[in-house]
């Protein structure tokens, strides 16, 4: 009955990946703290991967995992073996395994891991003084002729041999004794354990004497020809003995006959087996749901909301007498669907640890490459966010961490000169602030130089000298997020802020978050990410521009006014709208969006919004009202359009884009 392994592949890939990532984290943690707490969990991870890979028939991966398991086991008995070199080796093995798992996922052959496997074997041989045992994988078991694997030496101290496990009641006389010969099947992979089971089963019936081979040899699998003989004193009778052995696989009873009583050996006390240390913990009852399925639930729940809105819309055409009952039904439906939607949103909440767990490993790698000494502290990672936001946050966080270590933290010598501790510190802290989650990444490095940033932005023509003069330091730091500035090499070296900050800012803003930067020269830099808990439902102001409809997030709208074109002030060619005591620059929405503007007379509405540079007035054609909508993320290629933050479908069925006004103005 061959098992079709392909259906397990995706599960194998997810689980093996999780185990390997945890293994990497444990390694970094272990190296840092020097404690032994994570060794058991490391062993478990390696062990699980080995088992899974072997079952899937991925021989190379199984072998690597086996070596890791052996090495971790060695470290378990002697923690001093874990030096930096060994951590490096184990980490790169973990990486190799991860890429092999990825290759398996894509149906590709695994990358060559011969060199690393040799390194592992050498290291293992040096530590244990024996060559590593072969790893058994699924294909091998398909052939009964597979060579038997010599069992490893027992790891735990073996319990004392017990030939008389029970105290006997001497007063009642002795039960009959049987001579027994059994053979363990040649095909048995672990004859030692098989024989031990036989011994255990028989010990349960009475007392065992004259065991051959001796229990120690038996347990170690040293059983010539698989033959085991013993005498058993039991009142269970021949049928009882046969019964006890009858349901053990791979064992054949060769002979069973009564023997004449000889003097029994004195009873020995039964050793109480060492019980494994147990960590009390209430296991959470969870089921695993594929993330695509969660996305699908959210999509569907969102579409149900839209469909409900559509029914309400269509119902307006019904005669007035049918209205109340329809409204009531639609209200109830809306309530139910909203509740369902909320529950789905809740199910999507995922702790930030899913992404911060990768940071310690990354910090170690970056710090080693840059020859920096860095301590990374992560707090509050149990706080939850919608997984759509988390997915988009993984790379930016990593990027900010790299930025802090690459450019923020000074070399140990430089730090010493500044009278700072030799080890740099990067703190990643997460906290809830009302309906937002605030993630801060902070280093105690050299800080940024606002003047250098301004000069760089000026040199690239991104700002004018006038603007540069007006910028506060806080504003100047955000210049590093402008594409030209952040990629400028000299800036990344001089001011200490690197490549790709524009990408970070974009990613944070695309999920509805904001990025702020605080910095102090010589003291360090702090990146502050303020993120929404969820992205899905937003309140929009709908506006008409030409024949199109767009949504503006209400949260960013300050107000709306109507004004005659003639009442606008003008400064040079730009129009200015008087609003709340100041003059706001006017941007015709049609121009911003590249839509033909309709000729018009009379007053027109203006929407006042907050933008990067302050308040702006957007000239639109009509205000259509406010609506709570389900935001859909922009799928490729729409996400490439600057100035769009999402899309939704109105009750009428019409798709409507939600605008990101600051980016629209910047683009």
């Amino acid at each position, binding site marked *: *009955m*061959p*098992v079709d392994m392909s259906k*397990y592949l995706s*599960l*194998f890939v997810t*689980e*093996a990946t999780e185990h390997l990532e945890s293994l990497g984290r444990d390694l970094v943690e272990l190296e840092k703290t020097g404690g032994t707490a994570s060794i058991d*969990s490391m*062993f*478990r991870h390696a*062990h*699980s991967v*080995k*088992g*899974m890979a*072997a*079952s899937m*028939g991925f021989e190379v991966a199984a072998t690597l995992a*086996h070596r890791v*398991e052996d090495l971790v086991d060695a470290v378990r008995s002697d923690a001093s073996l874990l030096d930096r070199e060994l951590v490096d080796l184990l980490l790169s093995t973990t990486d190799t395994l991860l890429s092999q798992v990825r290759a398996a996922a894509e149906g590709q052959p695994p990358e060559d891991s011969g060199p690393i496997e040799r390194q592992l074997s050498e290291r293992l041989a040096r530590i244990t003084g024996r060559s590593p*045992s072969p*790893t*058994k*994988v*699924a294909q091998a*078991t*398909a052939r009964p002729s597979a060579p038997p*694997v010599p*069992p*490893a030496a*027992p*790891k*735990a101290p*073996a*319990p004392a041999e017990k030939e008389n496990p029970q105290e006997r009641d001497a007063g009642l006389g002795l039960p009959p004794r049987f001579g027994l010969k059994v053979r363990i099947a040649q095909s048995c*992979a*672990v004859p*030692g*354990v098989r024989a*031990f*089971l036989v011994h*255990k089963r028989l010990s349960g019936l009475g007392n065992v004497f004259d065991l051959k081979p001796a229990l120690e040899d038996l*347990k170690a*699998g040293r059983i010539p020809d698989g033959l085991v003989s013993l005498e058993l004193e039991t009142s269970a009778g021949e049928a009882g003995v046969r019964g006890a052995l*009858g*349901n*053990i*696989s791979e064992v054949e009873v060769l002979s069973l006959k009564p023997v004449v009583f000889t003097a029994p050996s004195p009873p020995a006390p039964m050793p109480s*087996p060492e*019980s*494994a240390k*147990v*960590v009390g*913990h*209430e*296991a959470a009852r969870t089921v*695993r749901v594929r993330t695509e399925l969660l996305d699908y639930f959210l999509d569907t729940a969102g579409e149900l909301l839209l469909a409900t809105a559509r029914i309400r819309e269509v119902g307006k055409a019904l005669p007035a007498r049918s209205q109340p009952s329809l409204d009531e039904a639609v209200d109830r439906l809306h309530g139910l669907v909203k509740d369902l939607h909320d529950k789905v949103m809740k199910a999507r909440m995922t702790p930030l640890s899913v992404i911060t767990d990768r940071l310690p490993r990354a910090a170690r790698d970056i710090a080693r490459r840059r020859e920096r000494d860095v301590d990374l502290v992560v707090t509050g990672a149990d706080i939850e966010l919608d997984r759509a936001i988390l997915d988009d946050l993984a790379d930016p966080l990593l990027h900010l961490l790299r930025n802090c270590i690459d450019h923020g933290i000074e070399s140990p010598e430089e730090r010493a000169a500044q009278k700072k501790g030799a080890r740099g510190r990067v703190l990643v802290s997460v906290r809830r602030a009302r309906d937002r989650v605030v993630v801060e990444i902070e280093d105690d490095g050299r800080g940024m130089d606002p003047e250098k940033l301004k000069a760089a932005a000026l040199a690239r023509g991104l700002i004018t000298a006038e603007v540069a003069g007006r910028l506060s330091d806080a504003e100047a730091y955000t210049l590093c997020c402008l594409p030209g500035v952040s990629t400028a090499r000299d800036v990344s070296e001089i001011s200490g802020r690197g490549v790709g900050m524009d990408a970070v800012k974009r990613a944070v803003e695309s999920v509805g978050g904001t990025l702020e930067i605080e910095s102090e020269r010589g003291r360090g830099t702090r990146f502050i990410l303020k993120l929404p808990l969820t992205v899905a439902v937003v309140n929009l102001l709908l506006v008409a521009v030409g024949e199109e409809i767009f949504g503006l997030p209400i949260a960013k709208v300050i107000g709306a006014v109507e004004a005659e074109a003639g009442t606008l002030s003008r400064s040079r060619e730009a129009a200015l709208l008087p609003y709340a005591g100041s003059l706001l620059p006017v941007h015709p929405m049609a121009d911003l969006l590249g839509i033909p503007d309709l000729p018009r007379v009379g007053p027109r509405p203006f929407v006042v919004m907050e933008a990067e540079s302050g308040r702006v007035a957007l000239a639109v054609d009509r205000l259509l009202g406010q609506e709570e909508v389900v935001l859909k993320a922009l799928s490729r290629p729409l996400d490439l359009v600057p100035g769009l933050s999402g899309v939704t479908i109105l009750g009428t069925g019409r798709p409507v884009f939600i605008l990101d006004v600051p980016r629209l103005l910047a683009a």
Partner: protein
Amino acid sequence: MAKRVLVVDDAIFMRNMIKDIFSSGGFEVVGEAANGLEAVEKYKELKPDLTTMDIVMPFKSGIEATREIVKHDTNAVVIMCSALGQESLVMEAIEAGAADFIVKPFRAEDVLAVVKKVVGEA
């Protein structure tokens, strides 16, 4: 009536595979547990005819769970799922009361042969 099985393993992957093997062999998998703690609870709740038990698991090892299950029900049939290289652990589990064991990587026919023998169907 089909024998009722409880499957204990911390890897979903392994659980699914074992479940499939049992289903193909005419057993009924009535529950699963991902760690030793849950295994003991589930055992008490479901009283299965047969329990397959992984050894290396979080919170509580399969050995400890087996010990508790057998203490709770002396007729419990617990089959250890072990890997090569875990011989000493399996023996410890047998000491703790495990009825038999199967060795990873699993082959359906091997697993079913062991299990059917243990429950007296072979």
